[in-house]
């Protein structure tokens, strides 16, 4: 029995990665949920919007690096973030003008919007691949670790190391700042309140003089910020690869639906539920159990519930369970 080492191993391989991944999913799911609440459709182009925003950040980072500009221990990508957000805002406003606004005026069924978003998804995906190519791109620089495994071992004298990557720290801090700012905006400002009113009851909001086009515009601007930040954080933490962002669509949708579509608080909770279940179920528990089990009873196998190839199946199964038993999500979402 070695509880301390088990705990450190658990934090190192499960808890810390899951918190970072959960924050990224939560930011992504917030965007999905906002679009669903205001524009009332599931935006399939979300993953590729993240890829587009991250791509802009990667390109700007490379340019900054070539100019010799940096942030010291922090990744240069943080400096590139505002530029990327502005670019994504422009792109999203353009798609709204050229694609979605027409169907809004037609009062088309939500499913038509979903189809249109699928078209937008492929155009964005194509754009990203044409501009930066389909390959892996690394763009993180600066200090790699806040605490490295070796330092931790020296400090504590434990057998297990605990490593906290800089990107993981940045992810969590940024996510907290963004979420606080978003909730302040939605609950305290006039525009935010009008957005919530529009989401709750469109007719009543229109009657009280809220300008729908303005609400939609502000929503796209916020979504651009959220997706770009989520995309850049994910790219910094893992690496930038266009196809991976398309694959993120499933866990992000699962997060938003598990939390309750249209409910921002639910999106955050859903993100962490999905992230923790994914990591818990695909982690090989041999090491942790080896410390916990009594002498001589340490497990032989990897004790891995599912291989990591099936991590998307985990979010899917959770999604199905929620749809079966609680279609409005854990927090009360908008509709069934």
């Amino acid at each position, binding site marked *: 029995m070695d509880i301390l080492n088990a705990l450190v191993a658990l934090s190192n391989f499960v808890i810390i990665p899951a918190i970072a991944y959960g924050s990224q999913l939560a930011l992504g799911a917030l965007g999905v949920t906002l679009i669903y609440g205001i524009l009332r*459709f*599931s935006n*399939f182009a979300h993953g590729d919007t993240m890829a587009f925003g991250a791509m802009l950040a990667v390109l700007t980072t490379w340019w900054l690096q070539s100019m010799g500009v940096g942030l010291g221990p922090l990744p240069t990508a943080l400096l590139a973030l505002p530029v990327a957000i502005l670019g994504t805002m422009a792109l999203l406003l353009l798609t709204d003008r050229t*694609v979605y606004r*027409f169907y809004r005026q037609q009062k088309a*069924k*939500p*499913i*038509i919007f*979903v*189809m*249109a978003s*699928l*078209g*937008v*998804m*492929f*155009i964005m*995906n*194509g*754009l990203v*691949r*044409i*501009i930066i*190519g*389909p390959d892996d791109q690394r763009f993180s620089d600066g200090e790699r670790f806040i605490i490295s495994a070796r330092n931790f071992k020296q400090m504590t004298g434990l057998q297990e190391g605990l490593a906290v990557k800089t990107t993981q720290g940045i992810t969590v801090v940024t996510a907290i700042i963004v979420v606080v700012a978003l909730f302040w905006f939605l609950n305290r400002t006039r525009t935010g309140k009008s957005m919530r009113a529009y989401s709750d009851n469109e007719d009543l909001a229109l009657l009280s003089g809220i300008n729908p086009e303005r609400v939609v515009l502000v929503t796209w601007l916020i979504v651009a910020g959220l997706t770009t930040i989520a995309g850049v954080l994910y790219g910094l933490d893992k690496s930038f690869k266009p196809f991976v962002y*398309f*694959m993120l*669509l*499933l866990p992000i*949708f*699962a997060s938003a*639906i598990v939390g309750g579509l249209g409910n921002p608080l639910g999106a955050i909770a859903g993100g962490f539920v999905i992230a923790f279940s994914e990591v818990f179920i695909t982690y090989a528990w041999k090491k942790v159990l080896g410390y916990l089990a009594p002498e001589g009873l340490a497990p032989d196998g990897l004790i891995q*519930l599912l*291989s990591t*190839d*099936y991590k*998307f*199946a985990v*979010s*899917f199964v959770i*999604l*199905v369970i929620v*749809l*079966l038993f609680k*279609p409005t999500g854990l927090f009360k979402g908008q*509709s*069934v």
Partner: protein
Amino acid sequence: MSDTVKNTLLFAGVAALIAGTGFIQSWNAALFILNMGLISAIMALGVNLQWGIAGLFNVGVMGFVALGGLATVLVSMPPVGDAWAAGGARVMAGLALGAATIVAAVLLHRHMAAGRARSLAMIALLAGGFFLYRFVFDAGVVAVEAVNPAGTGYLGGLGLPVLLAWPVGGLLAAGAAWLIGKTALGLRSDYLAIATLGIAEIVIAVMKNEDWLARGVKNVTGLPRPVPYEIDLQQDPAFVARAEGLGIDPVTASTLYTKVGYAILFVVVLAIIFWMAQKALNSPWGRMMRAIRDNEVAAEAMGKDVTARHLQIFILGSAVCGVAGAMMTTLDGQLTPSSYQPLRFTFLIWVMVIVGGSGNNLGAVLGGFLIWFLWVQVEPIGLGLMQLITAGMAEGSALKEHLLGSAAHMRLFTMGLILLLVLRFSPRGLIPEK
């Protein structure tokens, strides 16, 4: 111009495009486009059944097509005796245990009163069942995959005629569709889209990773064929004599002969499915489906069970996609799980249906041929376009290389653009619904 004349002209136009390929490039290429066009037309019919008639949005076509492909392997490959002896029984027992656990959980959920006791019992049952399943199943899988991993390493199939795989592929896809439909239909319309997107990715993940089933990414090659092999034809003196009588050299003649053989088989299947789809569309059942599509509330008020009818047509449409998937794998002669891309097998089919005319079976067939033709021929056009754009740039400049390299990704962009343009400016397609 009457509808019949217009439709005939449209089909004649597509036929001319394919025949043109035959004259300009080669008849082999033309027959390849024709064969895949026939398969695409069947897939488009399946999607049209779901979208055009019932308004269901299925973005998991790829998954159902892949299940059809899997059926080809499971039905037609000879069984691997050693693998069955080594761990076949164990794998089957594991699968049966897994299924039994799920059935038991469903029964438990149905028969116990809601409350904490039920939740705890469910969790205990599922957890216990899962570990038991893994315990039995894993050892079997290791044993099966250890048998000649370079050559087989899987259980093999049933060794039945390959044509039987086509209906079986439809059944497999129908089973998966039932599972999805049961969960996602009756909820908001976009939930079906998300669920189908998920199941498609999971089907592909299973096919890539479960080596005992169909060799995973090691691919199954050399599937049995319903038509004779070229090499046998070339060695058959009677065939060679006949080919020379027609003035074609025996090698070309043999490839054309097999391709035409496939084409005849595919035409038969397409004709059957088209006839059935047409009958369904014009029957009282089809009218009811369209009534549900156009106004769910009114149809429900008239006493129609909307969710059950949706489930019905969702399963039928997916089964058609499964049949087409099995046919495609038969034509390829191999199963390569990594070749299933959502763009090619989900999105392209959608473009076919929308361009052809959603709600009209004839339109779906036309769209299948036309878009497949464009898909094959757009690549050289895209490369040509990029060469034109970059013509003025300096030789060997990085930008020029990059642009030429990215020509392959033009397809994504073009297909997205076509979908958006048609959806906006001509949502009824080339042959609109009547």
